[in-house]
């Protein structure tokens, strides 16, 4: 159980990795301890032709773990000079030539340039080794972030040529946690092909501890390793690690599909909820609902601009500040539309479709004339950017999380209003039996008006939720309206539960089909599925009780 639990934290895995790397590094360090850097020997090796040069470079890399900071800096200078072809070989030690002056490579003393110095030649093989050494030196000595990044990138090409001890030391010196993780990962990769079997096994375990697609791929290449065929312990470890991490990778892909589906569903849900309230009550589809969503986003924009000019410090919280404004503005607008147009049409639902379409046309063009057709520029608050990795490749992105949390809050609000307030009781009563409700003295007309306002306000909140994650322009509402209809029609007449389940279902199916056939085809298939479903159950998932009309 413990084993399973500590996988869940990325941090725990990272700590484990570092521990593995540190352990193997410490084990190696004991063997090569105390060898203070032999400066003349190193320079002589560099000057001694291809063989001694390779040896010197490898030796230098080995000795880095134990070398003193001064030695590291000195070696960095020499290797840089070698790479820049500024090192000259003279007897007894080399020389570094810089702009006419010459320095003794070993002692650093200024000397007079000799007559005919020889430049050591870097062949293709040693060039790679020199690059590795240079990168390792940079990691150990430089504080300059871009050059450290370059060094890491260089090391990741041939991590197996670098001794684990060097990685251990670099991990200690890492400037940021991201860098520490990168170095730790490199050391694990290096350890995978190390000749030391316990270190290899520890590295495999380390990889399996942080399962994602990349590590799984890396583990799978180990099956081609010669040791896989000969060493049973190795084979068992590799197989166990692959089985283990492929489980987590599968789980994480299932989780991310579910997560994407839920976040899509929550946007659908908020968009459709207001529609469902209105449809349930009056049997009227409000074709202007998409435009109320759009107006909600525009109101949020106005609030953002207001906050920017009044209290710039609060700009990060404008979305929260905007909630009451957006709700009130769109709700009042909804009440206005109801009072002037819709109330005359309750007995002619199909004419309401046309009338509300006219309203939507009017609103779109009003906004277009006032604000223009460009997308609005929204500030993206910190809580809707970025994300964190939960398990495997499953990244919890904050913008989707925001949509989900917001939808849950709206659901709670709507549920509270409909189940726990007098207005809600009236709305439910009128929905169930309008005539009877009227007979017992419920002011059905006023309930209609307030419910229309509630539905419009909820649509406005949908616009608010979409503002930071969607293109906000006069036409944005039309993109939602058809899918919102389908949610409402699929859910059945105006129950919150039906709307919720319908949006979750549509969201999940959509996200599941999307990787197979693409976004457009997913939408097409989902809509066709719903159309087919309606034929089978014309009143949706949760039909209102009573006889069919």
């Amino acid at each position, binding site marked *: 159980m413990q084993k399973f639990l500590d996988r869940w934290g990325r941090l725990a895995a990272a700590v484990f990795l570092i521990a593995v790397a540190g352990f193997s590094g410490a084990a190696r360090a004991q063997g090569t301890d105390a060898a203070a850097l032999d400066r003349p020997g190193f320079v002589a090796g560099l000057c001694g032709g291809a063989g001694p040069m390779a040896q010197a470079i490898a030796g230098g890399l080995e000795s880095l773990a134990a070398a003193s900071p001064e030695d590291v800096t000195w070696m960095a200078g020499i290797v840089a000079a070698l790479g820049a072809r500024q090192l000259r070989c003279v007897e007894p030690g080399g020389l570094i030539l810089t702009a006419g002056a010459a320095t003794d490579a070993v002692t650093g003393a200024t000397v007079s340039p000799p007559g005919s110095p020889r430049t050591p030649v870097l062949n293709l093989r040693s060039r790679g080794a020199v690059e590795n050494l240079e990168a390792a030196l940079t990691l150990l000595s430089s504080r300059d972030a871009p050059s450290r990044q370059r060094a890491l990138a260089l090391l990741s090409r041939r991590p197996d040529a670098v001794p684990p001890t060097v990685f251990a030391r670099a991990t200690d010196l890492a400037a940021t946690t991201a860098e520490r993780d990168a170095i730790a990962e490199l050391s694990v990769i290096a350890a995978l092909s190390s000749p030391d079997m316990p270190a290899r096994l520890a590295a495999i375990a380390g990889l399996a501890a942080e399962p994602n697609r990349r590590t799984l791929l890396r583990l799978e290449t180990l099956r081609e390793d010669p040791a896989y065929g000969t060493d049973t312990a190795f084979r068992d470890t590799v197989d166990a690690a692959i089985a283990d991490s492929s489980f987590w990778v599968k789980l994480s892909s299932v989780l991310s599909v579910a997560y994407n589906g839920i976040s899509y569903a929550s946007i659908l849900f908020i968009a459709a909820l207001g529609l469902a309230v209105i449809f349930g009550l009056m049997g009227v589809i409000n074709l202007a609902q998409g435009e109320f969503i759009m107006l909600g986003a525009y109101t949020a924009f106005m609030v953002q601009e207001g906050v920017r000019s009044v209290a710039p410090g609060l700009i990060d919280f404008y979305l929260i500040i905007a909630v009451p404004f957006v709700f009130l503005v769109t709700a009042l607008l909804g009440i206005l539309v109801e009072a002037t147009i819709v109330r005359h*049409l309750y*007995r*002619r*639902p199909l004419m309401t479709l046309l009338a509300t379409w006219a309203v939507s046309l009017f609103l779109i063009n009003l906004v277009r004339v006032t604000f223009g057709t460009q997308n609005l520029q929204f500030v993206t608050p910190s809580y809707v950017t970025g994300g964190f990795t939960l398990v495997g490749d499953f990244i919890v992105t904050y913008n989707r999380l925001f949509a989900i949390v917001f939808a849950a809050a709206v659901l709670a609000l709507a549920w509270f209003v409909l189940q726990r307030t007098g207005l809600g009781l009236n709305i439910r009563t009128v929905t169930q039996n309008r005539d009877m409700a009227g007979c017992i003295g419920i002011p059905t007309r006023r309930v209609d008006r307030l419910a229309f306002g509630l539905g419009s306000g909820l649509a406005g909140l949908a616009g608010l939720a979409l503002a930071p994650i969607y293109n906000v322009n006069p036409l944005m509402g039309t993109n939602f309206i058809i899918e919102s209809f389908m949610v409402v*029609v699929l859910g059945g007449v105006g129950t919150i539960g039906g709307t919720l389940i319908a949006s979750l279902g549509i969201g999940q199916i959509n996200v599941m089909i999307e990787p197979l056939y693409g976004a457009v085809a997913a939408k*097409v298939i989902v*809509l066709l599925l719903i159309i087919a479903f*309606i034929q*089978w159950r014309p009143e949706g998932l949760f039909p209102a009780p009573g006889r069919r*009309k």
Partner: protein
Amino acid sequence: MSAATTPAGALPASPGLVRRFGGDGGFRTVTALVAAGLAAILVFGGALAGGPLGLSPYLVNLVGQLAAFALLALALDLIWGFAGILSLGHGLYFAIGGYIAAMHLLKHGFAVSGVVPDFMQFMGWSEFPAFWWGLESFPYALLLVVLVSGTVAFLFGYVSFRSKVGGVYFAIITQALVYVAMLLMFRNDTGFGGNNGMTGFSVIFGFPVGSAGLTVGLTAASLAVLLTALLGLRWLMTGRYGRLVLACRDDEVRLRTLGYRTLWLKLSVWCLSAVLAAVAGMLYVPQVGIINPRLLSPELSIEIAVWVAIGGRGYLTGAVLGAIFVNALKFWLATRAPELWPFILSGLVVLVVLLLPNGFSDAGREISRLGDRRGRGRTLESLRRTLLRERGA
């Protein structure tokens, strides 16, 4: 005609204004107008299009487009006004006709001039997709228009009407259907030209596109088809079949109880309406010279219902007049004040929906109803009318 054969769907006409707008005389007037237009185009066609007599080729073409729209509105009126089923997806059938017409024109153009259509060059195809086979023949294209639109309508209508999907649900589903079709057509790999659509028609029946004679011919054809449809539907809707359709609209359960199979009744009107809409699309596309998925946008399909609602549901003349009025206004404003058009259209819709429940064709009756209220009180007739209107939707 006598009072017994009032326009289908309309109630016995009351005297005065009614006759002028929606009553018996309305039908005759509109028919006469269409026929006169057709005759003028046929007789003076070449001269008209030539310009000296004042009617520019642009206007002749406009008349043709309006006729195609009027036919489309007639198709929707048939199913909405007479059978009481609102479709917000009639653009689907219009586009089926349009796409097949465009395919025929491109194939025909290829056969005559050997020019490969733009969209195929764009996709890098060297051959027409398999389903374009035979489309260079006009009779086959016409047959295909009828078959495809009829089949699509039959399949969709059969499942829907059988499970008694109706009212708002049906309207929403039809809109979803046309939206699905639009999404599909926006893809470039379906072989229908993708989001750019199809254009670049060069010849029609061997005549070069853009010539004055062809413009006149297409307009005359559109007017002729409109006239035929108008007379044919009039005949159909005043007969026994039309009365059954109306009965089904007003009380389907009672009709079923009497032993009529309303499923097949509704289905036949639905398919007829779809085929008419497809024919309208077939006439429309050669006149505008382009087709793209925007024809399938849900907005256009709603607009068709708006034409009918403004002109008058349940009156054949209402649909024709509504389509011509709204579209002529749109064309007129398109150059003068395009930004004003949406405001005017939305205002018009709200006004008509609130004040004239059955559109302009009912204007006279509404006015006399006001008179009824003030003076003679409610007659049994006006009560019945109110009931019907409220139930009919």
